């Protein structure tokens, strides 16, 4: 009996893997089909580079312990991290909802969240060559910005980037449930962008923030989405401790909340007559 349970579980995991693979390949093909789109995405992620060019002209950076070179490392890392933590699940879910695609998804034996999650991951892979190209061009024009993270910190950063992505995905997923109630989630997405913009360290490294605001930001999930992985990737030490516990608490809380909001959302959806 024990064995039976075990194989059942294994076949379910295997099934998920197959779903992932199929989605990966089809999504990858789709993204290549729309290569203009990937290029647009890559351009749209250049905010950290804009901020870098602004800050590099300012004297203020020395007062919070940076110099032009390690500031460049920070923002270039932020650019990379941002590319791989992009989340657009609210827009897709809203679109699918309006087009009535949710109902067939609900009837399929794969939880819909995986469908969206996998399609995000595969799209991020399709972006990899383009990001590398952009970084290469950047280093070509600014050779003094060049650095290579060592293997150890590279592996750790890939891990933290993935966690960051999951965190952001969960947040957006929870908010996306609201589109079952209003059909319009895109304005909420704009709202969600604001704390992400100002608290994640995208606009300046957290060290630049006044003490209270910094402490507050570190209690929200946002710095763990951008600041933490960027620091890792640029191989910089933290001059103050980041509370990893806060990150884990957020992951647990958001996972639980996302399950509940999904249930409530689907209930409402079916009550409306699907």
């Amino acid at each position: 009996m024990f064995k039976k349970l075990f194989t059942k579980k294994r076949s379910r995991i295997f099934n998920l893997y197959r779903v992932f693979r199929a989605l990966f390949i089809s999504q990858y093909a789709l993204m290549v089909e729309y290569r203009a789109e990937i290029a647009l995405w890559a351009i749209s992620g250049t905010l950290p580079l804009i901020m870098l060019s602004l800050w590099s002209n300012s004297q203020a950076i020395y007062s919070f312990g940076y110099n032009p070179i390690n500031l460049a490392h920070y923002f270039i890392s932020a650019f990379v991290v941002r590319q791989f933590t992009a989340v657009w699940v609210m827009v897709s879910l809203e679109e699918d909802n309006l087009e009535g695609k949710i109902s067939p998804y609900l009837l399929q034996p794969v939880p819909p969240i995986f469908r969206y999650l996998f399609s995000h991951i595969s799209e991020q892979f399709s972006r990899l060559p383009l990001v590398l190209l952009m970084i290469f061009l950047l280093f070509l024009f600014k050779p003094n910005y060049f650095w290579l993270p060592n293997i150890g910190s590279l592996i750790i950063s890939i891990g933290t980037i993935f966690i960051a992505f999951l965190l952001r995905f969960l947040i957006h997923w929870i908010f996306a449930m609201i589109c079952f109630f209003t059909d319009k989630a895109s304005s909420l997405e704009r709202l969600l962008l604001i704390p992400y913009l100002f608290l994640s360290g995208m606009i300046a490294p957290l060290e630049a923030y006044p003490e209270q605001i910094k402490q507050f930001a570190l209690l929200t999930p946002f710095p763990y989405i951008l600041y933490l992985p960027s620091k890792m990737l640029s191989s910089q030490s933290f001059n103050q401790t980041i509370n990893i516990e806060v990150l884990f608490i957020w992951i647990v809380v958001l996972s639980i909340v996302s399950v509940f909001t999904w249930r409530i959302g689907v209930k409402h959806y079916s009550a409306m007559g699907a």
Partner: protein
Amino acid sequence: MPVIRVKDLSKEYLVADKQPGLIGTFRHFFSREYTSIKAVESIGFNIDRGEIVGFIGPNGAGKTTTLKMLCGLIHPTSGVVNVSGNIPSLRKYKFLKDITLVMGQKQQLIWDLPPIDSLKVNAAVYGIPDKEASYRIQELALMLDLKEELNRPVRKLSLGQRMKAELLASLLHRPSILFLDEPTLGLDVNSQLRVRDFLYNYNQKYQATIILTSHYMADITSLCKRILVIDKGQLFYDGPLAKLTQQFSPSRLVRLEFNEQINFSLLKHYGKIIKQDNYSVKLLINRNDLPQKINNLLNNFSIRDLEIADPPIEEIISKIYSNKIE
């Protein structure tokens, strides 16, 4: 003077090829090969004012493509199109005010609002004064049997009601040339009838020219005196519906009812038996021998009832589509 003149009209679509699988996809990213699909190949026809013409052909034959070129949505690869003295692809306002395109699978009505709001937008767009517009809306609504549906949000309307509202919106500016691409798609028998009646009345009332595609043969037989058959992008037949049946079906369908039970094997050399029952039979008899054979039948059997008809149009069409007739 024909209103629609088409000569040597062709359209090729360029489509990027892609091999399946990851490697194919990867290759596709860097270099693309295009194949051209010949959707329409040098077709030509003339249509006179006031005609209702049925445009039929199997899926992917090029009907929609032709209609789109006729109303100027897509540019022809080669050939000449002239619709009431205009070149459609220039999309002059004078031309656009004269035509309309109704597509069974696309809609112009605003989804979240009642049709009446979309109608108001259209009235403004076509420069119809408010008073005139509401008069026309009433008139068309009466013809289409639409009432309070016009004040309900479109998303709450049934398919048939929506289609009728679409028709109303497309005809508000009283076009004299109508391009209808499967206007009865998905409608029930009654709604189909109503749409057909409406189109017929509209044609009579305004001397409108109508080109209609449909996969329901009843639409075609009840409305169109003339049909164009297109297959694989090429014009296959252009002429009266009646002649099509003559040309492509050399036999006629004869239904006989007998007074007594008979031995069906005796009927075999009169023609092909399609269906047999206790007292009745359906036979396919060649047109040329028809008088002779009927005569023999009447002499040799005790017949209660007799009916001669063309075989169902669907059968002929399906024969043409599957290329059984050369």
